[in-house]
């Protein structure tokens, strides 16, 4: 592929990774932070694949597949936590429990 070397991809991946990181640091909304982390993971995947491409091995791609799967599981858990939290914030369900919290 001509002039496009692995360093190009690495730079692109670094840029995405760092934009994601800045998002985590700057943003206020939990969901946006979550999306920014996903962006970071994708950037790391890109690095993996780029390195694999450079090394002519499939290990990088396999690794990337695993991270995608892990990210999916993380998304499920994370969003469930967010939902649980939002439910908790909105409805202080039980007066009983508010009392236990105060203790």
């Amino acid at each position, binding site marked *: 592929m001509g002039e496009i070397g692995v360093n190009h991809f690495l730079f692109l991946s670094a840029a995405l990774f760092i934009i994601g990181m800045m998002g*985590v*640091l700057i943003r*206020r909304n939990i969901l946006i*932070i979550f999306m920014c982390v996903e962006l970071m993971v994708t950037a790391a995947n890109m690095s993996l694949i780029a390195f694999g491409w450079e090394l002519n091995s499939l290990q990088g791609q396999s690794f990337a597949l695993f991270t995608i799967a892990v990210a999916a599981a993380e998304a499920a858990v994370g969003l469930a936590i967010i939902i649980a*939290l939002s439910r908790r914030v909105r409805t202080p369900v039980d007066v009983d429990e508010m009392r236990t919290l105060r203790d």
Partner: protein
Amino acid sequence: MADWLFLIPVLPLLAFGINFFFGRSFRYQAHWVAVPAVLASWALSVAAFLDIRENDEPLSQHLFTWIPSGDFRVDVNLYVDQLTAVMLLVVTTVGLLVHIFSIGYMTKVFDPNEAAHGHADHGAHGAEEKDPRYFLFFAYLPLFVFSMLMLVMADNYLLMFVFWEAVGLCSYLLIGFYYWRRSAANAAKKAFIVNRVGDLGFGLGVMWTFVAFGTLAFYGEDGVFAQAARGVASEGTLTGIALLLFTGAVGKSAQFPLHVWLPDAMEGPTPVSALIHAATMVTAGIYMVARSHVIFSQSTTAMWVVSAIGAFTAFMAATIAITQFDIKRVIAYSTLSQLGYMAFALGTGAWIAAIFHLMTHAFFKGLLFLGAGSVIHGMHHEQDIRNMGGLRKQMPVTFWTFLIASAANAGIIPLAGFWSKDEIIVGSWISEPFPNWGKFIAIVGLVSAFLTSLYMFRLVFLVFFTRPRYDASHLHPHESPAVMTIPLILLAIPSAVIGFVGFPPEDGPFHHFLEPVFSEQAEASQEADETASLYVVAGAQEDGLHQEEATEAEEHEEGGHHVSTRTTVTFGIISTAVALLGLFVAYLTYIAGRIDPVAVANRYQGLYQFLYNKWGWDELYNKIFVAPARWLAMVLWRVVDVGIIDGAVNGVAAGIGVISQRLRHVQTGLVANYALAIALGMVVMVGVYLAAFSDLFR
């Protein structure tokens, strides 16, 4: 004999276990477990002592190997030589008598009938009257005895350190025994924390010893002492080790500047004060230094420090004692002062004299405390001597035993304290390492002896003589029951006569008995020096220096502590005169009324206040240690955790305000800040590493 050495400490441990775990079921009979155990332990100690005196051979028993890793191993061995045998006798004797005394003292406190009798002091805690912790007391006491016995029987520094900590823990538990009293709780905490400072030094000293010698065992071919005597380590190293070890002794034996915990420790039950804070635990530091004398004696600096601190403590504590009004406090400061004597005896190389005084002191100081306990008991928990007086009629046994103990402490002639204290003063006068300094210290010792006599008899006169100053219509002092007076009498006997074991001063049976401990090593060191000098001669390098040292050592040995009879007698007379002078001044002041103490105090108001406030050490420590530590913790927490990381983001002012919205604040504000901390750490680390360790800027 050696095969059942382990029984000596194990029996009290057993008593502890039984009382601690099953004590509830026989709460007021708990002493039936503890006393026989300690009694048996005492009998075994006597047997061990006789065995050693017979055979002149140290006993030792290998229990198990504790940390055998590689070339470093720590064995749990029990080792009993002459020094340990003396300590065993002291600990078990005093321990046994204190156990017996406690039967009377402790039941009385918790006796509901006594509460009905109505003494306001304790009545305030009506709920505690029935506190079933009698058994717990009789669990802690044997535990302490066990730890102390293990401490003196340990044959290596690590084991010693373990039980060094253990006796500290017991002391902590017992000082805070009346934990519902805030002052008791604070005193316990203070004792523990101050001791931790010392222990830290001791721990570092042990570590350094290990680094320097590669072992922690005391004796044997490659033991610490043999190596130290052989000159394996440089003098600087030995000085460092000695000073660090001495830090531990300073903490445990309550020497200046870590002495502040001991007077406060009097918050514990009185028998505890007698056992732990007078007779045994506080002498652990003295014992340890004596045990390590091979290390200490090779470092002039360390010896100097030990003697200086000891002398200062002896003097300072004596001055404080003359102004105090709490009966236990006076005795506590007296303890400090006597410990100071022992320390400077060690520092001037009078090892045997120090141990001699340790022994006599254990008996008469234990007796003093028990007597004080008896007085407090009889006075229904009154401790202020201004509210006593004339008790000799109501409490004759207590009076006579207390008098014997006081006279012994003051150094009145045929009693135990006289012989040992006199020997210390002579020892420092003729001290080889520091001729001039030793003389100075001896004079300080004499001055302190005068003060000792003064405050002891002040106490006796104020408590037992003159007319009663308490409200006689409400308070009826009474003699204590036999279970308390018998230990007093039993302790009074050694307090009076034990001094004669060292009768021809410097040449008594006691000295001959202990001689091997302190001379064997000296011989070894002498040999080592000779061989060393031979080497040096052969190598022909800087031999002069070494030879000088070697000859010096020889001279030291020869000169030793064998003093001319004339010096001994002279000092005997001087000491007696000084002690009698103190007695006389006390008499003039408190009985004859020639000197008005109030007037004196008013005249030298500043000095009096200074002494009364114990030289202000507590306040000083509060200011320079406690407050800043608290402040630092708060600052780190507030500023670093909440302030910088949190506040940098939220703005400090806003940050405080939003705490009300705890949920929102805690929940979200911090997540991003935490991420920020991670990112910051990452960026800084990467930056530093790339700049400093990478090939970028090669």
